[in-house]
């Protein structure tokens, strides 16, 4: 047994733009333990719900995270709609699904780029982000924003996408699909990549469940849990199966994300074919009644939980967001011991950490 050293990792680290701090306990080059600390960007957005009425709060909740901003808005609206017992029009449900899946596509491509950057594939990183730009252009064209869309509202959505635009989106996405297919071969087949990711940071099936892992981290360990299977928005009418990989290592988690890009694109094609005509929003009357509501959604990073408590006024008593990264920190602590110091950045990346999300 060697001498133990403690190496601080983060909050500023080249591989992560996010302020995650880990105290790594090392024995020679092997990590034997890790203590996380977060709280560098705590903003207390949840508390703001007491000062902003429930219509305005959508725009605050969207700003919890830049990458999954649409699904935060959707989740908030869905929770408040559940609390008030509002049924939104079918077209709005499909539009939300399309935007949510586009978010997943651009989030996963972004992550693939960051992953490539983490093991030193700079030009692959550039290519991933070049492809992602096409998805962002679709967002700007349809919602008006590249990152923050402000298109969800309690009772539906603000903007409609006409059917011609939807068809054009599909042709753009077919292009994206072709390019991602070429790029994904590097992640799946490249020898160097496999050397860095195979067998690193293994999370077993039982550990993933017990530690509360969510999203691709959970599905990479062979657990077929996907909140979209709850059938919220239009997911109940679309045909898909959760993507599962057995190994539970970094390679499996990468593979899950690569395959989810194609799954999301397929879901968008399905939704575009099935989208009905009609209204995009219902009128919302009155305030949220006294009561509580919990809803669970699937974000690119995993399951997200919203809890809302109303009191009959236009201000909610409490709104709680449990973001996916918060749940994935405990599995990360389990994965770290036993790996090399050089693998820590890649391990931290495979849970797709979003610390600003986590601390809200």
């Amino acid at each position, binding site marked *: 047994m060697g001498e133990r050293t403690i190496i601080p990792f983060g909050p500023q680290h080249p591989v992560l733009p996010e302020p995650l701090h880990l105290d790594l306990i090392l024995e020679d080059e092997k990590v034997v333990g890790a203590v996380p600390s977060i709280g560098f960007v705590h903003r207390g957005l949840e508390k703001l719900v007491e000062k902003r009425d429930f219509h305005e709060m959508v725009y605050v909740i969207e700003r919890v995270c830049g990458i999954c901003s649409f699904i935060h808005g959707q989740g908030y609206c869905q929770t408040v709609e559940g609390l008030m017992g509002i049924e939104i029009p079918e077209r709005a449900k499909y539009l939300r699904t399309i935007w949510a899946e586009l978010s997943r596509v651009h989030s996963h491509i972004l992550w693939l780029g960051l992953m490539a950057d983490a093991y030193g594939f700079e030009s692959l990183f550039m290519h991933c982000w070049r492809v992602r730009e096409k998805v962002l252009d679709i967002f*700007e064209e349809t919602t008006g924003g590249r990152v923050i869309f402000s298109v969800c509202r309690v009772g539906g959505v603000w903007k409609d996408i006409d059917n011609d635009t939807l068809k054009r989106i599909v042709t753009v996405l077919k292009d994206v699909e072709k390019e991602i297919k070429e790029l994904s071969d590097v992640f799946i087949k490249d020898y160097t990549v496999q050397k860095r990711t195979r067998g690193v940071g293994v999370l077993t099936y039982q550990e993933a469940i017990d530690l509360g892992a969510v999203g691709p981290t959970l599905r990479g360990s062979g657990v077929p849990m996907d909140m979209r299977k709850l059938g919220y928005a239009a997911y109940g009418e679309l045909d898909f199966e959760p993507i599962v990989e057995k190994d539970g290592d970094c390679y499996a988690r990468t593979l899950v994300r690569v395959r989810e890009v194609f799954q999301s694109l397929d879901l968008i094609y399905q939704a575009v074919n099935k989208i009905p005509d009609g209204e995009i929003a219902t009128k919302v009357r009155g305030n949220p009644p006294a009561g509580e509501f919990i809803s669970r959604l699937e974000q690119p990073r995993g399951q997200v939980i919203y809890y809302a408590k109303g009191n009959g006024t236009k201000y909610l008593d409490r709104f709680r967001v449990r973001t996916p990264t918060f749940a994935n920190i405990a599995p990360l602590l389990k994965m770290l011991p036993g790996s090399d110091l050089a693998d820590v950045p890649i391990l931290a990346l495979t849970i797709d950490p979003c610390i600003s999300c986590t601390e809200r």
Partner: protein
Amino acid sequence: MGFNVIGKTIMKSLFGKPATAMYPIVKNEFYPNTRGRIENDITLCNYCGLCGRRCPAGAIEVSKPEKKWEIDRTRCIVCNFCVQVCARNALSTERHYTTPMTDKSKRITTLYGEKEEPVKEKVQENA
């Protein structure tokens, strides 16, 4: 097969158009939907102050007696909510973003309504 893919990519990179734009020379084209900044058509505004009260960021200030409508461009998050709540459709979202500023005093845009209008309104109300 792998060689074909990389060969194609190299050819595209060498002879194709770059993916980025030469920014100061080529200006970015915005979409009609792009939310750049909030503009107010002051002739339509009746200074009800609804936009200011509903603004999630507290960026808009309206004063009825002074006929003043004021927006803090650096506070505004361009969420479009004021445009949607405006009863007289005076507010709109302009496609172009606020130009960057070096001086903080330029962040506030103030618009004043015409002085004659209150007289007209009063006449109408009396009549």
